[in-house]
């Protein structure tokens, strides 16, 4: 399974594509897709690149865990959850729709 992610153009924040094709900051909102649907979702994301909402959309492998979906790679887990060890870790993340 995969989810589609990108960075928002205006502020660079990590965003995930939900089932309605919107870009959300919350990983939990991401639509989990099978291979064919992922290919289509990445292709459709090109429209949002052209519309200047996002940059560099791509698919991320995820797995189901008891706590919900989680990316398989450390890099994508950190992108999804924020820095594990930065000065701002205690600060709340703001959610803002693209």
């Amino acid at each position, binding site marked *: 399974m995969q989810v589609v992610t990108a960075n928002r153009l205006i502020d*660079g924040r990590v965003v995930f594509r939900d089932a309605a094709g919107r870009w959300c900051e919350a990983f939990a909102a991401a639509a989990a897709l099978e291979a064919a649907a992922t290919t289509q979702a990445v292709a459709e994301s090109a429209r949002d690149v052209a519309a200047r909402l996002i940059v560099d959309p791509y698919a991320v492998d995820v797995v189901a865990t008891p706590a919900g979906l989680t990316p398989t790679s450390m890099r994508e887990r950190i992108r999804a959850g924020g820095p594990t060890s930065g000065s701002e870790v205690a600060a709340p993340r703001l959610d803002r729709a693209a």
Partner: protein
Amino acid sequence: MYVYDALDRRFVAARVEQFRDQVARRLSGELSEEQFRPLRLMNGVYLQLHSYMLRVAIPYGTLSSRQLRTLARIARTHDKGYGHFTTRQNIQFNWPSLEMIPDILAELAEVEMHAIQTSGNCIRSITADHLAGAAPDEVVDPRPYAEILRQWSSVHPEFSWLPRKFKIAITGAPQDRAAIRVHDIGLQVVKRDDGEVGFTVHVGGGLGRSPFLAWTLRDFLPEKHLLAYVEAILRVYNLYGRRDNKYKARIKILMHEAGFATVRDEVEAEFERIRDGALELPAADVARIARQFALPPLAARPAASPREDAAKAADPAFARFVATNVTPHKVAGHASVTISLKPIGGVPGDATAEAMELVADLAERYGHGEIRVSHRQNLILPHVARDDLPEIHAALVAAGLATANAGLVSDTITCPGLDFCALANARSIPVAKDIARRFADPARAAEIGPLDVKISGCINACAHHHVGAIGILGVDRKGEEFYQLTLGGSSGEDAALGDSAGPGFPPERVADAVETVVSTYLAHRTAPHETFLATWRRVGLAPFKEALAHVGR
């Protein structure tokens, strides 16, 4: 400190407006990301894992209180209340919005700062000894030459699209605190017996996936030829440096592949062609710029400070702070104070807006309004009276900024790693925190003595792990973070690349591995003053490797 002239001001202001237009055209869709990327990189703007990142130049690591307050305001207004000081004496803001970056650059321009050439394949912001102008062993203050090189290299039309980035570091002291032998060009200002000032020129140092210590191209280059000679080096590099493979594009690879003698002969031939021309440095111009870096008026004082001695006797924490974080000054009765940005359990190099403002205030009150940033990711008050040390220490204690660990195990150099950086393979910050906690006991840290630990989250080696006494490199091993140790490296005048200490360790074992290395050193050193490197050079890798074999992996 250097003050912008009208030309500098116009240049920086024009660049802000140019970038404002470029950002507007990106946001309007006139520029694609592919077109915009090289433009933003020329202005220090990266797109990292979580956000854009803005890298602001602090040329040769020198800041005024006013400038530091502006950095604090930017941290508070446009970031999450902090900034990150780097191994290249820059500051990075991790969370700016692209649309606000032109305003940030305008704020910076008001205090004579910018982000020009902090990224991209150009001559990067020039770094220098953080104790320049203050250190007792210094022969000549290197900063006027760093400033001359900054002016010469800023949007130099021939060198704005080099094969790869190009880093210059300069020191004016025999003790190398600027890591000049691991830079593309490392300059040491020297004075001959006859009083003539010139430079020892090192070329082709660099770390990353192919680490090299620099070759010495010239033992003595007369002052007036600085720009012509450096231009000759850049011209040879620009012509012959590889552009087919970014991993083989730095000048070190050219030196390695073409050979030292070939490159030297090409540089000397080009230098002969252009010397004594427009690039010759007029002595009057050097003197004019040097005057701007004059030592502040430091009143003559007795070498010893009874106030300092009384405070040391009364307060062991102050005594420890003086032992580790206070270094002698060239003027009697004065000192340079290192403000460690490595609190135990904190993020190495991070400073909150409040911390920056406090340091700015202390500099203004006790240190002639001057602050330095070291490549070791700390802040320094270069010129303070020893009599004022108790008050400075008390203010730092109150703000939680009095960590007495400068140069000790917990004073690591640490890159942002996978917590922030798009290039990283493994995290650095949690490893640094673990190590700092392990060596938090001041008595034990003092017993161990100076020991530099450098932690990079990928092979690009931003934390200079190859030249750490203990170097730690994070790698990705089948999707898991894994850390390899190198031992015996040095970035000083005795520069050396570390040797691999064998197979690596999972994250939770790194502090154990460091502890094992430290214990092995303590067991083998002949006396408390025998440094780690001295012991290492005497006993070699074997006892360390043997001890590390017993650390779980």
